[in-house]
């Protein structure tokens, strides 16, 4: 039986279609993926992402433990800052992609992990902690809501007693949200949609109230509850990777375009560092490229990619881009195929659909005035 977030009853009451995702019963859509996608690009959307896992790593050895566990440089984080990183195995394969955040108190870090990989991640992290490090899986006690879109700041600002425009990307603040009494929310300027927005962490017991308060406050701004369907179309337009689909333990970070998260000279070698150094020097065996389909048909995960009739790679993610009005996809191809920038084709149910190689992301939000 699938797990339920504390917001499950609210999703059902809002008429959501529920689907199983990563062991969780989650809303796929409330109205339509198109409407929800457009709401986030033009106004704002509210997502329940309480299924995501969260662990706390703390103690005098916490920094060193995390530096060993993840590829990015956790040592450069100031209090209340966070970063995106991958966690690799000894062979440089990606175990998961994560957000690591430094709490306000020294030596305390919060790590956000994918729902489907939580148990695997927790076991791996526990097994590779250094001395003087405590580890706590707080997933069940933590609710997480994402408020995303150009109007997100206008919706949240009147509810908090701090200037949100001063909250920079990948930083967080502990704030009280009006209408959510006696609970502090950790408000982080992060997201998975390609838009400006916030992710709000709060005790599981208060996440329902926070959801209601935000939905009501956003009604006048056109805020919509959004499901996993729109979350996927939004993240793919924004060129954001999805673990389990775009990467897994057979993929190294350089191949999937996440080499920028690998800091080999941070003082502490992360697990897999030797292999990663080798891949960096010789170049990865394949490259992730963006594909823009010439028509509306959709390339899907696992479909074969061809160049001049010859097999050239495989699609990892594909969808219809509501923003661009065509199919988009990501695919792994050999480095020389990526370098050629030649048009490719995707075998969609037996017919060859033409695809242009385009740089990722497919969509970048317009700069704010």
């Amino acid at each position: 039986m699938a797990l339920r977030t504390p917001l499950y009853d609210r999703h059902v009451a809002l008429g959501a279609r529920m689907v199983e995702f990563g062991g969780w019963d989650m809303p796929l859509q409330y109205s339509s993926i198109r409407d929800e996608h457009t709401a986030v690009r033009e106004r704002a959307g509210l997502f329940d992402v309480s299924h995501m896992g969260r662990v706390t790593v703390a103690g005098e050895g916490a920094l060193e433990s995390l530096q060993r566990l993840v590829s990015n440089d956790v040592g450069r984080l100031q209090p209340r800052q966070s970063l995106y990183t991958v966690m690799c195995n000894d062979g440089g394969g990606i175990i998961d992609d994560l957000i690591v955040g430094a709490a306000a108190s020294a030596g305390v870090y919060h790590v956000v992990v994918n729902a489907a990989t939580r148990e695997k991640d927790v076991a791996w992290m526990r097994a590779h902690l250094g001395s003087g490090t405590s580890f706590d899986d707080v997933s069940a006690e933590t609710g997480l809501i994402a408020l995303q879109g150009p109007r997100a700041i206008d919706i949240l600002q009147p509810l908090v007693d701090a200037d949100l425009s001063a909250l920079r990307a990948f930083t967080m603040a502990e704030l009280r949200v009006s209408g959510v009494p006696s609970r502090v929310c950790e408000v982080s300027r992060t997201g998975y949609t390609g838009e400006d927005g916030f992710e709000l962490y709060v005790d599981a017991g208060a996440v329902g109230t926070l959801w209601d308060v935000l939905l009501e406050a956003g009604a006048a701004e056109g805020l919509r509850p959004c499901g996993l369907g729109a979350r996927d179309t939004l993240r793919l337009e924004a060129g954001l990777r999805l673990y389990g689909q775009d990467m897994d333990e057979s993929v190294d970070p350089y191949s999937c375009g996440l080499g920028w998260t690998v800091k080999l000279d941070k003082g502490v070698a992360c697990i897999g560092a030797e292999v990663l150094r080798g891949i960096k020097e010789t170049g990865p065996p394949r490259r992730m490229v963006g594909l823009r389909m010439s028509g509306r048909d959709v390339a899907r995960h696992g479909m074969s990619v061809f160049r001049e009739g010859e097999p050239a790679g495989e699609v990892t993610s594909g969808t219809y881009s509501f923003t661009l009005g065509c199919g988009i996809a990501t695919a792994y191809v050999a480095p020389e195929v990526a370098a050629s920038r030649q048009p490719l084709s995707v075998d969609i149910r037996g017919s060859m659909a033409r695809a242009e190689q385009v740089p990722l992301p497919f969509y970048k939000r317009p700069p704010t005035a």
Partner: protein
Amino acid sequence: MPDLSGYRFTASHEWVDGGSRVGITDYAQAQLGDVIFLELPEVGRSLSAGERFGVIESVKAASDLYSPVGGRVVAVNTALVDSPEKVNADPYGDGWLLRLEDVDETGAELLDVDAYAKVTEGH
């Protein structure tokens, strides 16, 4: 709910009306979600009952389409090329898929409104 008294249905969620137009049901469009692409047959093609005639693709997935009855395709709904969302908005009207002539019901397994409602019950 439109008047569906002249419509007959398949267990695979297509319909055919009294004018031999073919489409998918409201239940089917709701299950599929946002329709973004349709692969429909050429005009002139002959179909037998139950034959796969195309593909309907939503953001989530692609699904095969099956002809409720046999016949010759005399029209396809070309408006769906640019506006496939009509299938979601009006599955029994503007969202029709194709029209048949020389209809042949050999081998067709058709349900009336009430029988089809039972198929979708409990889903």
